[in-house]
C-alpha cells in the first residue's frame, strides 16, 4: 500500500464536511445529495467519468458556485462559502484543471495577484514567501520566468504555490495529472506527500484508477452526480490493486460497463492499466509516403505558437502522434496541413505533389481531412440539420447537389447511412446539429471526414472531454482507419492515448519538433516526457 499511512498521526476529525450537497443546472443534476468528509493529512481521491459531477463539487467548495441544497461545515461549523475569496479565507486552495496563470505575467506577479494590503507590490516579501512554499513542496520555481515559458509541470507547481500562498489547510487538485509527463507526475506525487505530512488535507480529482490507488488514502466515486461508493483509509489499505479496480469500476460505470467495451478496453480507458501499442507491422519505411512537410513555418500569434521549420514524413497506414503542451503549435500544425493556414516558408507535399499553395477544398479533394478540436464552432454549423452537416463538404457535388439544388433524397439517404454506421444518436437526421451531445457531435465530424475516401486524416484532440464509451469508439475508429492503410496525424495532450495509438510520437515545443520516439517499448511515455520537460528547460529562459 502507499507510504502515506503516516496520515494516521494526524487528527481524524474532518476539516471540511459536505452535507447533502446538491446542485442542479438546466437539464442536468450535477450533484445529488453528496455527503463527504475531508480529513487532515490525507489524500482524498474523487473518481468519476467526465460529467459525473466532480468539477461542480469542487467549484462549490471553491466558492465559484453555490449549492442548491445542503451545506458545508468547516471544523464542524456550518459556513457559507460565497466567493473564491471566502473559500481562501477558510483555508481552501484550489488548483483548477485549466491553468489560471496569466501567461504574459511573471511567476511572481501571478503569485502576488491574490495578495491584498499595501498599495505597492511588495516583491521582496513575495520572493521570501515563495522560497518558503518551494521548500514546503520540495520544488524549485524561478520567480522571474514568464508563466508562458514554463513547462506544464512547472506551471502546476506555481499553481500549487498560489493555492498554498495564504496558508491553506485544504488543497484541491482538479485532474492535475491529465496532461503531465510521467516525471512531472512523480514530482507532483512527492509534493503532495510532503504537504500531507504537514497535515494539509488534499482532495485529488482524477479519472485514472491507478493514480487513485497509488496516491489516495481515501477514495470516493461519483457517477451521474451521485456519490456511489466511498472507500475509507482502513479498507483501502486492505485492498489489492485488482480488487480495488473491480470495486471502483463497478461503481463508476454500474451496468453501463459492458456497453463501453470489453474488460481490457475499460481498464485502459479508466487508466487502471498503462496503454501499450500492439504493433501490427514492424516497419513501414517501404510504405508509400503520403504526407510530407518540408521545413514548414507559420506565423505565431500572441496567444499561440505557430510552427517553425517543421519537417515530418507520414506513410500510408502509419499513425504519428504529436505530444506537447497545449498551445505550442499543435493547432498551427493541423491547420497548415489542412490548408487553413498558409506556410510562410517551406512546402507541404501530398502523395508527392506540392500542395503548399492549395486551399482547404482542393486538399480535401486529394484525400486530406482534418478533424478539428473546436467541434462546436469550427466543426459544425450548429443551426443546420445533422444531415446537412454530414454532407457539408459535398456542397455542389453530384449526386447530392443537382443543377445547383439540394437533392434531398440523396442527402437524406447518405445521412441516414452515416448516422447508422457511426452510431450517431440523434432524434432525427433533420434535428439541429447544435442540439447533439459533445460525443455525438464528434461522431458526426468523424462520419463526415472519414467518408468519401480519405487518405490522410489529422485528428486534433479527438477524445478531449468525451465520455469513456465515446472515447473508446473514437479510438477504435482511428485504429481501424490506419489498419486499412490510412495515414493519421494524431495531435493529443493525453499521453496514454498517444501511446495506445501511435507508431511514433513526435514532441512539439514552442512550435518546433524537438524529438521523436519510436513507440516500441513500454518506456515510450517516459521518453516522451523527457523531451517535453527537457525542451522547456533548455529553451525556457532566454526568450
Amino acid at each position: 500500500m502507499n507510504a502515506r499511512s503516516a496520515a494516521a498521526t494526524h487528527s481524524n476529525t474532518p476539516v471540511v464536511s459536505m452535507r447533502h450537497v446538491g446542485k442542479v443546472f438546466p437539464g442536468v443534476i450535477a450533484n445529488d445529495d453528496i455527503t463527504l468528509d475531508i480529513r487532515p493529512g490525507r489524500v482524498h481521491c474523487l473518481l468519476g467519468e467526465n460529467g459525473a459531477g466532480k468539477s461542480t463539487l469542487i467549484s462549490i467548495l471553491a466558492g465559484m458556485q453555490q449549492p442548491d441544497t445542503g451545506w458545508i461545515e468547516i471544523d464542524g461549523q456550518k459556513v457559507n462559502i460565497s466567493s473564491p475569496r471566502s473559500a481562501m479565507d477558510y483555508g481552501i486552495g484550489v488548483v483548477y484543471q485549466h491553468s489560471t496563470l496569466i501567461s504574459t505575467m511573471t511567476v511572481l506577479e501571478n503569485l502576488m495577484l491574490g495578495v491584498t494590503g499595501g498599495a505597492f507590490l511588495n516583491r521582496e516579501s513575495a520572493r521570501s514567501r515563495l522560497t518558503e512554499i518551494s521548500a514546503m513542496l520540495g520544488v524549485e520555481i524561478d520567480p522571474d520566468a514568464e508563466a508562458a515559458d514554463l513547462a506544464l509541470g512547472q506551471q502546476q507547481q506555481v499553481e500549487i504555490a498560489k493555492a498554498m500562498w495564504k496558508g491553506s489547510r485544504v488543497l484541491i487538485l482538479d485532474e492535475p495529472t491529465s496532461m503531465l509527463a510521467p516525471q512531472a507526475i512523480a514530482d507532483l506525487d512527492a509534493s503532495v506527500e510532503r504537504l500531507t505530512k504537514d497535515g494539509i488535507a488534499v482532495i485529488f480529482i482524477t479519472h485514472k484508477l491507478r493514480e487513485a490507488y497509488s496516491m489516495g488514502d481515501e477514495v470516493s466515486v461519483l457517477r451521474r452526480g451521485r456519490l456511489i461508493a466511498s472507500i475509507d483509509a482502513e479498507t483501502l489499505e486492505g485492498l489489492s490493486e485488482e480488487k480495488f479496480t473491480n470495486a471502483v469500476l463497478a461503481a463508476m460505470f454500474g451496468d453501463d460497463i459492458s456497453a463501453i467495451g470489453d474488460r481490457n478496453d475499460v481498464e485502459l480507458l479508466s487508466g487502471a492499466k498503462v496503454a501499450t501499442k500492439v504493433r501490427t507491422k514492424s516497419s513501414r519505411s517501404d510504405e508509400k509516403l503520403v504526407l510530407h512537410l518540408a521545413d514548414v513555418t507559420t506565423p505565431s500569434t500572441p496567444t499561440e505558437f505557430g510552427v517553425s521549420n517543421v519537417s515530418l514524413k507520414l506513410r500510408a497506414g502509419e499513425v504519428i502522434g504529436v505530444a506537447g503542451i497545449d498551445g505550442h503549435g499543435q493547432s498551427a500544425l493541423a491547420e497548415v496541413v489542412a490548408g487553413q493556414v498558409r506556410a510562410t516558408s517551406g512546402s507541404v507535399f501530398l502523395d508527392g505533389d506540392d500542395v503548399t499553395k492549395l486551399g482547404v477544398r482542393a486538399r480535401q479533394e486529394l484525400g486530406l481531412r482534418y478533424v478539428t478540436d473546436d467541434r462546436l464552432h469550427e466543426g459544425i454549423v450548429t443551426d443546420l440539420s445533422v444531415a446537412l452537416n454530414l454532407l457539408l463538404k459535398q456542397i455542389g457535388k453530384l449526386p447530392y447537389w443537382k443543377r445547383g439544388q439540394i437533392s434531398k433524397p440523396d442527402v437524406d439517404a447518405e445521412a441516414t447511412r452515416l448516422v447508422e454506421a457511426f452510431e450517431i444518436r440523434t432524434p432525427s437526421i433533420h434535428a439541429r446539429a447544435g442540439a447533439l451531445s459533445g460525443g455525438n457531435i464528434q461522431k458526426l465530424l468523424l462520419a463526415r471526414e472519414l467518408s468519401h475516401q480519405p487518405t490522410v486524416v489529422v485528428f486534433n484532440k479527438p477524445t478531449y472531454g468525451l465520455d469513456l464509451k465515446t472515447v473508446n469508439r473514437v479510438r477504435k475508429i482511428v485504429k481501424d482507419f490506419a489498419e486499412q492503410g490510412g495515414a493519421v496525424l494524431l495531435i493529443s495532450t493525453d499521453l496514454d492515448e498517444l501511446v495506445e495509438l501511435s507508431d511514433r510520437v513526435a514532441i512539439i515545443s514552442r512550435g518546433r519538433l524537438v524529438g521523436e520516439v519510436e513507440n516500441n517499448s513500454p518506456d515510450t511515455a517516459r521518453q516522451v516526457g523527457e523531451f517535453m520537460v527537457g525542451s522547456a528547460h533548455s529553451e525556457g529562459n532566454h526568450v
Partner: protein
Amino acid sequence: MIDIFTTTFIATFIAGVIASAIPLVLGSLGETLGEQSGVLNLGIEGMMLFGAYFGFVTTLETNSYFLGLLAGIAAGFVMSILMVMLNIWLGLNQIVIGLALTMIGGGITSVLYFSTYGQTTPRLGQPDVFPIPVLSDLPVVGSSIFQQPLAFWIALVLAFVVSVVLRNTNFGLRVRAAGQNPNSLDAAGGNVVRTRTFVALLGGAFAGFGGAYLALMSAGTFTPFMTSGIGYIAIVVTMLSRGRILWVIASSFVYGISVSVGTVLQLTSFDLPTDVIKMLPFVAVMITLIVFARSSYVPPALGVPYTRGAR
C-alpha cells in the same frame, strides 16, 4: 511666404504640438486604464465632448480655469457611471453602449451649445501660465514648453502616476489580470467587477479632463464636435501602446506634430487645399496602423463582460 525657421515660429510650432497632444495623452491614459482591465470604452469621444462643453461653460460663467477643468472631469466621470452600469454591472455589449455614448455626447453638447451660445459664440481668454523658473527664460523652448498652464504639468504627472500604478501596485496588477484573464483574478480572490468599475470611472474622468483641456487650454472655446475624432485616435494609440505609458506620450506627440505641420503648411506657399491638410493627422494614424498594426495587442478579455462560472 513666411520664414518658417525664425525662433518665434518654431516656438509657436512646439506650443501647437503640445496643445494638440495633451488632450490625446489624457484621453489615451484613461483608455489605457480601461483596456488594461478589459473594458473597451468606445464612448470616449462622447466623454471628451462632455468634458469640453461643461468645462467651457463653467469657465465662461465663473472665469475660473480650475473650476472649469474640475467640471470637465466631473462630466466625464458622470458619463462613465452610465457606462459602468450598463457594461460592467449589466454585462451589455460594450461596443453598442460605447457608440451610443459617443453619439449622445456629441448630440447633447451640440444642442446645448447652439441653444445657449449659438448666437454669441463666446471665447475664453488666455489661461494663466505656470512658468518654470530659469527654464522659461531659455530661447525657443522657454516660451513654448516652460510657459505652459499648470494643467499641462498635471497631465504629465498623471501619466507618470498611471505608469507607476499599472506596473508597481497591487491595484495595477489586479487591473492587468482583469484584462488578461478575469477568471484568474476571480479565482485569486480579486473582485473583477469592482476593479473594472473603478478603472472605468477613472477612465471617464481622464477623458473629461482631456476634453476640458482641449476646450480651455488648446482652443480657448467650444465648438460642436470639436474633438473631431481624438477619442477614436486615443483608442488607436492605446492599442498600439499596449499599456506602455511612454508610448502613449510618444504617439500622442506624433499626432500633435502632424496636426501642427498642417498649420505650418497652410502658412507656407505650398498650395494645398485645406481639406487635404486637415486629413494629415488621420493619414498619419493610418500609416502608423499599417506599419505597426501587427504589433498591436489587446488584452484577451477586452470587451468581454465577466460572469463568474460562465465558460
